[in-house]
């Protein structure tokens, strides 16, 4: 359903498709998986678009991209864990490998977070959105954004610590 204030679907896609794909790719670390998830996100978004006006397209799409990517990652968790184990055994102490493993661990740890914390973290870190922009996009208070971000960072930092130290 389109209203006068609601942008048409083509504009929405052109404006936000890169962002959706980028968020998914950063969470999943795989172009193929990100393409699949992005497609699902847009199908879901299109149905919502037809159902009624959307308050914040950025908020909706980044949230959907984040949550659907995390769902995808959770479903593939067993595989990821095996890969991760393999990586730990074979890894070279060189810094680029450490960083690569850290990135993998962050992607894993992100999927352990509650939805709101994960979404706020992605918006802040991956999409470089300000606290006010996040609050506005998600329809939550700035204080809630701060708290979510604080907790997300705390948990993610804790998740990342042990592995990194193993390589020191």
């Amino acid at each position, binding site marked *: 359903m389109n209203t006068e204030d609601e942008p048409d679907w083509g504009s929405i896609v052109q404006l936000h498709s890169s962002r959706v794909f980028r968020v998914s790719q950063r969470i999943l670390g795989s172009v193929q998986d990100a393409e699949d998830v992005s497609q699902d996100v847009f199908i879901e978004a299109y149905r919502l678009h037809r159902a009624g006006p959307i308050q914040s397209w950025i908020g909706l799409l980044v949230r959907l991209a984040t949550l659907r990517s995390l769902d995808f990652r959770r479903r593939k968790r067993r595989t990821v864990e095996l890969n991760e184990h393999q990586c730990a055994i074979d890894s070279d102490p060189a810094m680029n490998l450490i960083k690569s493993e850290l990135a993998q661990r*962050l*992607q894993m740890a992100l999927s352990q977070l509650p939805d709101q914390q994960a979404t706020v973290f992605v918006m802040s870190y991956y999409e470089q959105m300000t606290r006010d922009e996040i609050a506005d996009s998600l329809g939550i208070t700035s204080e809630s954004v701060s708290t979510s971000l604080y907790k997300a960072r705390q948990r993610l930092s804790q998740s990342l610590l042990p592995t990194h130290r193993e390589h020191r």
Partner: protein
Amino acid sequence: MKPEPIDFDAQELDSAVAEILSHPFDQAAAARVQQRALQIPLNENKVQLAQSQQTLSNRWARLGSIAASLAATILLVAWLTSGPTSNALAQVVEHVMKIRTLQFAFKMNFSDRYTQSGTVMIRDEVVRFEQSVGDQSLVSLINSKSREALIIDPIRKIVQKSDLNNLRGVENINPIAELIAAKDKSVKSLGSDRIDGKPVSTYSIRGLRVLGIVGDTEMTLWVDTESQLPIKIEMLDSDPKSKTRITFDQFQWNAELPVERFAMTVPDGYQPGTVLVEPSRQNDKQPTTTQDLSKGILLAGRVPSRIDVDQERGILTALIRDQENTKEHWPNELRQWNLATGELRWQASVGGAGDLAVCHAKDLLVVVQGQEIQLRKLSTGETIKTWASENLLGEVALSEDGTRLAHGYTQWSRPAGSAPTAGGIEIWNIATGKLEQHIQGLDRVDSVEFSPSGELLLVCSSSGTSRLYKSSTGELEYSFASYFATVSPDGKRLAMVSPKPTINKTQPSVDLVDLETKVVLKRLTTLAGSTNSYLLSLSFSKDGKQLVAGDWNGTVSVWDTVDGQLLPSPKPLPAGVHRVRFTNSREVAIGCENATLRLQPIGN
């Protein structure tokens, strides 16, 4: 004061993020995503019964409890009047579409937890929704064409104007999954029945996933065989655990409904405000709080986000709320304790109130809730009067003589910078309830405070600039770089978070500044925290000789303001400190995000 994100000492996290951000962006893949997304409408052109339900159930997600009930009603009507559904119901739909006005009753039982009931009237594009609240009715008028909403509280004579899209609050209802799962619906005839002696045909529609109900929703429809119009409709969650049932009956088709009842105008004698009505919850437990004075814990279980201490009377008043990560949020509360005995003197529910201010001398307490200002008696919590601003209110302050009230508001920025964050201050005369000053053109406002004489108003902003205004004229007196400050009890000094960069971000400084000369008298260094600092609370002792600071990194620092020395301070807490206040010269009360209100000794 809102907390800012705090930088953890987390090199690993930063490295991991940097690594992820450094991955190349695959333009070709992004183009494929865009191309496929543009083609979605071509693949989704099926016309289904589900469409109108999608529209309305999507709205449902955005609406508060009042409007949500209404959405269910609109859903029903839209369903009834929407295009071809099935051959079995085609005749009913044909009759329904000829109807100009309609009135019916509804009753909604949600999981045995609460019930809503009332009456719905529909005339043209306006729906009048009357929800029973005690022996009164809360009225909502919604114009589905203009998408304007008007919520009328006849008990408190308050009217809230809103946009239909801006009404939201059912955060825990997520209809998205249900929308995705929506499939073709089949209508089944259940045969004949009788209701109130009238012969009826009964139909069932299964597989509706609407209203945020967990599991499939089944709609049963009883149609008068003579008029071919529905006389009862029931929606039932098929999940036996949910016990959710919505019943619509007492239908009056083409009822005589006076047009005045559908006027989207503010009735005489009403004032703008925030209408807050929670459905009654019959079987839910209230959030549990405890007390353990042997450990100095006055309250545990909810977050004391604001505190005031009246040292003369030995009472502490706190505004408490649930922790941010709590699944189900209960209304915020005001509570007041006797500090000597720990006895709870009174408590009051204040919905979504965000800040409080007090005037000890005049026994006044103010809380702001949405657009509404509530003036209460500090000693009893009893409401004296309420009035409303046109702005969504934030922080609040009372002058020491209790004659004026100031509050800040912040209009948040829109994405993509289409409208920057803007804030302002309103100063009201309490006796007359009239707006005396309106200072506009500020950025966000995070705290307001009258100087002891009431001459100045201190306005702080986490954007990094704080300002002192002449409260009588709104004239800017002094502007300084600091995100938070407070005025000493003698009105001669300002304690402000130092704008000077500190070596260690976990250990900021607080500057004591002479208000007349603007000279920094002392630089006080806080206790080091385990994470970066964000000071949310600064408070002088009654004699001005001590200062206490509460930090979002969990530290509480107490200084002797005469020699600038850090005094023995309470142990850091595991979560952010919202407010710290002296209860006497040897003890502070600390409100912490870990849902505790503690009384902690200070000094030697």
